[in-house]
């Protein structure tokens, strides 16, 4: 039985690791991140039903691929989840049908209405990311490019930027947080 208080205080990567044996741990991750993932998908699709279904598919794919998550020690799995959400969105547009392969594997049924796929869902998708990255201070942007894009270890990022590994970690963390805020702003 889930000891909720303990799980609530557990960091994302540890919860994901624990979720290999515990669906309760994964539920905590869902509760932490679902609203922002949904906000991102709703902003792209402007279709509440589609956004809910794509949110479910995003987390279903996250569940099925949780063994493959690499812990970059950023303290959050949000960037990984947003990567999945972007993939789910793009696959839906490409196939002209809401992506639901992971939901089917998990037999996760949702009762939503029919949705018309609109290619405009992807309009400016990469622009968002590029713009978010461009808005970062140089130090944060370089740290993210080295750590996330080039997948370098913090010690190597630190060496390249002539800072301590701890400072590199802080820059990446703050940069990713800023990008996440930017990408999850919902249009009103």
């Amino acid at each position: 039985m889930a000891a909720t208080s303990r799980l609530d205080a557990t960091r994302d990567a540890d919860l994901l690791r624990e979720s290999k044996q515990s669906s309760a741990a994964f539920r905590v991750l869902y509760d932490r991140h679902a609203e922002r993932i949904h906000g991102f998908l709703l902003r792209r699709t402007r279709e509440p039903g589609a956004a809910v279904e794509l949110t479910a598919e995003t987390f279903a794919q996250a569940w099925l691929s949780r063994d493959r998550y690499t812990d970059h020690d950023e303290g959050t799995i949000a960037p990984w989840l947003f990567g999945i959400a972007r993939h789910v969105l793009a696959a839906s547009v490409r196939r002209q049908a809401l992506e639901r392969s992971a939901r089917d594997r998990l037999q996760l049924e949702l009762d939503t209405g029919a949705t018309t796929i609109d290619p405009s869902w992807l309009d400016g998708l990469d622009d968002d990311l590029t713009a978010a990255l461009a808005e970062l201070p140089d130090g944060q942007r370089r740290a993210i490019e080295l750590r996330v894009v080039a997948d370098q270890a913090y010690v190597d990022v630190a060496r390249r930027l002539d800072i301590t590994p701890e400072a590199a970690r802080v820059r990446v963390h703050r940069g990713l947080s800023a990008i996440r805020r930017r990408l999850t702003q919902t249009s009103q």
Partner: protein
Amino acid sequence: MNQAPHEPTLQEVGDALAAATNRDLHRGRHRPVRRIALALAGLAVIGAGTAAAAGLFGPKQVAAGMPAGTAIFGQTDPTCVLNPDDSSYRCTLSKPPANEVTDANGNPAYLGTKEVLAIDGVVAGGCIGLDAAGMTWDCYVGQAAVDHEIIGPDFLGEPVLGPGHG
């Protein structure tokens, strides 16, 4: 969050996802052992109140079911006796459970904590902590564990691969 009334909320999606992931976690594992399945079915027929008295599970089985169901009970050497109500077991540990549930100061906080009891490889019931240190527990088998809201009805009889965490 604004949702059309007929569309599932994020909460409902979370609930459905939790059920689906729980099924997936147990998919491919051994089906419930026939004997325990029959015993649990018997409990449903007999009723929770007489479950322990029915003698379907002995105190030693319940004691062994604590570490089998929940990892924190590993190496705690539980001992159980039938409570006077004939429907639950009072279990005492020889050593404290793993320090997984704590208060803000890092002290054990097991009072009221609910943990899974597994017998013969399936979820057979659950236990409730009676003190903060986690040394004493009341354990319920079958429907009684559901009635005490320790486990959900769908979880009863589910196979377990190993002791759970959390």
